């Protein structure tokens, strides 16, 4: 590293010591250490984000080469909001968030409160619930695809056993494909929620519970009056991150349904993939990317603003 060379030279007195003061050396070191990360972020995040803004104002089929770029202004964005597939993707994303985020959060907080307060072998339960989160989404999707088999799969066999003569055909059913994926998603994500909630609960001072016990508060009362309110910041964190990640869902959809049947399980990222990498409409796909980015920015800002007002640390 050039930095250490500079240091050694300075120490040996061969470089003008008066120029390479400690302060100057620290400045240089700071910039050298941060440089790779900053350059990397500019190359893989900042530049692409701006580049995609420019692209979103153009019509460009990648196959035609750089000379085939046409500037079209806001046409892509206008077209987007007339495009039924995109509107369906947007609607599906919203339904997906509404159907998964509250469920995982409620289940997560209840299960982790039980694990935290009532159970022996906590580590075992943490690990057990976390296992699906570690597993490759694609491998898990392959398993669920078999479980969901319309006639022979265990899910429907059990439903038929329970007296449901005409169970849903899950992934191949237009009214159930999205729900089928939501179920897998909740199953995979629950462990993550439990880990974060448990971490939040460990930060709540034990004395509060002791005092409440002396005052005769029941377990459920303690959960409502102590655990839930003091978990405010954790809950907010999970609400933001879960909403954002539910808008990024892609792997399961690509592997299981390709957005189908009949676009019933399509989502924004899947549409970006289809327009950009299957139809090579780079401008149009970039316009979608920017809508996705703006939605995520909006979610983050709204939750930040409400958080500053409502939650007390």
């Amino acid at each position, binding site marked *: *590293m050039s*930095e*250490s060379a500079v*240091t050694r030279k300075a120490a040996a007195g061969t470089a003008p010591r008066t120029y390479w003061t400690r302060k100057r050396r*620290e*400045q240089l*070191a*700071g910039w050298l*250490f*941060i440089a*790779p*990360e900053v350059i990397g972020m500019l190359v*893989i995040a*900042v530049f692409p*984000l701006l580049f*995609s803004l420019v692209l979103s104002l153009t019509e460009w089929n990648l196959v035609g080469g750089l000379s085939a770029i046409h500037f079209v202004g806001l046409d892509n964005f206008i077209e987007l909001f007339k495009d039924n597939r995109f509107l369906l993707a947007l609607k599906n994303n919203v339904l997906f968030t509404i159907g998964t985020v509250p469920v995982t959060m409620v289940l997560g907080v209840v299960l982790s409160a*039980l694990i935290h307060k*009532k*159970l022996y072998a906590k580590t075992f*339960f943490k*690990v057990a619930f*976390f*296992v*699906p989160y*570690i*597993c*490759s*989404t*694609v*491998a898990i999707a*392959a*398993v669920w695809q*078999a479980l969901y*088999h319309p006639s*022979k799969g*265990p899910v429907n066999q059990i439903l038929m*056993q329970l007296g449901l003569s005409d169970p849903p055909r899950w992934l191949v059913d237009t009214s159930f494909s999205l729900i089928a994926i939501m179920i897998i998603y909740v199953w995979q994500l*629950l462990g*993550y929620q439990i*880990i*974060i909630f448990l*971490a*939040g609960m*460990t*930060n709540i001072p*034990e004395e509060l519970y002791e005092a409440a016990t002396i005052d005769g508060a029941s377990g459920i009362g303690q959960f409502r009056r102590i655990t839930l309110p003091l978990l405010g910041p*954790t809950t907010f964190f999970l609400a933001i*991150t879960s909403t954002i990640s539910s808008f990024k869902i892609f792997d399961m959809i690509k*592997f299981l349904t390709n957005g189908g049947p009949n676009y019933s399980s399509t989502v924004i990222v899947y549409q*970006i*993939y289809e327009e*950009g*990498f299957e139809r090579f409409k*780079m401008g149009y796909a*970039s316009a979608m*990317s920017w809508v*996705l*980015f703006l939605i*995520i920015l909006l979610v*983050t800002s709204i939750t930040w603003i409400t958080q500053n007002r409502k939650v007390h640390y």
Partner: protein
Amino acid sequence: MTMRKFKPGNLLFTILFALVSVFFLMPLVWMLSAASKTEKEVWTFPIQWIPNDWNIIANFKAVWMGDVAFGLFYMNSLKIALISTVATIVISAMAGYALGKLDFKGRTLIFTLMLAFMMIPEQATLVPRYIMIKELGLYDSHAALILMGMFSSYFTFLLRQFMVGIHNDMLEAAELDGAGFFRIFWSVVLPLSRPILATVGIIKFIWTWNDYQGPLIMLNSTRLYTIPLGMQFFKEEFGTQISVMMMASVAAILPLLVLFLLLQKQVIDGIAIGGVKG
């Protein structure tokens, strides 16, 4: 945690909960069971959890010695995950040290920008990154995936948070002994950060191993495929042979599962730190 008094009620809860978690893990148990059966027995109902007709060896051969180069996909995944993990650790640790322990002009600005970068979703920049990789002539290469996976503002943030907590006395002592900033980083800061480095390393490795979207977009040649992409390929070739698909799923999951079970504390703590401080 202080030990609480033994309560029979809690023991009952624990047993009840153990049943719940078994039910929760049922899909994975089904996968293991199906991977060791004949195709016919996979679909028998009620589910035959322990196979009558063991078929592990044939399924194993179909995955590993069949027409699909599963072993090659494995090596590709291992190569990409290892290189990206090491590179991320080095780059993020350097940045974390600079942001946490060095005083330089623009540090606050860069730190704020770093936090802002975390809000840029990878999925929103897929198209331009693909075009960049094409223009650089890196399309359909592992280098493309490694380059895209080396930088992480999230891990930089985690490492920075840890390194801020290292006492300055230790760094000053090293400086008095004549160590430069690079030397301090290498011989003082890195060894003291071992636990968080391990955590970052494992989490990054797991994420890269499981990544599907990156390879899907950046790779074309079958010989370069990683496991998740190979699974898709497998599905197209053997979609109807569920027992073989399940054996392939086991193969995709097992190494990470073993790694996770061995190092579960690092993984869980790492995820928890990200969540509580994030």
